[in-house]
């Protein structure tokens, strides 16, 4: 099982956003590829997003709808939208209904560790991710919600 690295896989229909209108404008803190989950950096720069990366960024905001260079404006679709995302590995299938979170592969999603773990929520997969197919899958975006608050 290896981490995926490519963002050149085809998105069905060509659009990251499948449905929803909750789209906002942010500044790219580094180069961003469409389909990446993006998040506010741990250093907390206002209205600036980076590819979501566990340990580097904090709260995911949504999914980038376009590819942009560092410093450019980027449209980000957030909470409540259904968007195409890509999981981090080529070896672990994820079922529809899986709650997915930020990972240590920039912009990719992975299954949450468990109900008792505090992680940065991205959403709920609405269709199966067959890992070896290297495809994008539709996900109900729930960025901003905690997977769990502290006990």
């Amino acid at each position, binding site marked *: 099982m290896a981490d995926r690295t490519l963002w050149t896989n085809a998105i069905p229909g060509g659009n990251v956003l499948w449905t929803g209108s909750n789209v906002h404008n942010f500044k790219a803190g580094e180069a961003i590829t469409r389909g990446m989950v993006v998040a506010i950096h741990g250093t907390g720069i206002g209205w600036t997003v980076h590819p979501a990366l566990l340990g580097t960024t904090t709260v995911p905001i949504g999914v980038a709808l376009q590819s942009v260079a560092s410093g450019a404006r980027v449209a980000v679709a957030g*909470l*409540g939208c259904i968007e195409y995302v890509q999981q981090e590995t080529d070896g672990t299938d994820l079922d529809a*209904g899986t709650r997915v979170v930020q990972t240590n592969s920039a912009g990719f999603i992975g299954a949450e560790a468990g109900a008792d773990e505090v992680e940065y929520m991205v959403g*709920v997969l*609405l269709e199966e991710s067959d890992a070896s197919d290297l495809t994008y899958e*539709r996900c109900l975006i729930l960025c901003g919600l905690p997977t769990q*608050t*502290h006990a």
Partner: protein
Amino acid sequence: MAPTDRTSFPVARTSAAVGNIGDSLKGVHISGNNVASFTVGATAVKAGQVVSISATGLDFTVIPCVAEAGSQPIGVAVTDGAVGAKISVAMIGCIAKVSNYSSDTAIDASERLTWNDCAIGGSVIACSGGTTQPLGGRALAYDVATTLELTPILVMCGARSTIHA
């Protein structure tokens, strides 16, 4: 005295009876545009039922939500649907009407609501204390259980109830 489960799911208003501004789709969907289409899985769905992706995880397929490890509540059905049919589901951020699981235990406005094992399927119960539970929504009105009607909630499916020690 232990609460009594409802024995049938409340009937949403028929299309012919819908006429008030803000009401639509059998009166279940109150407001919000975060509505998407899903396929009904192994069990028919009634408007007003909270629906979930089952633990077996079929793509874009929902069933009436009953407490089940591994399943994931997605939203509130705003149309009826037979097995295999397409239905519209109001998701997080919408306001929609759902059914209390009980015929004699009221739900207060603002209470956090979760799934349960009532046989009518797709009904809600108030969250209990410090238990981690999937959140269906937040009650927006006082539900008098004995009227056996639907009650409006802010849909929050996908979130979990919070534990705060």
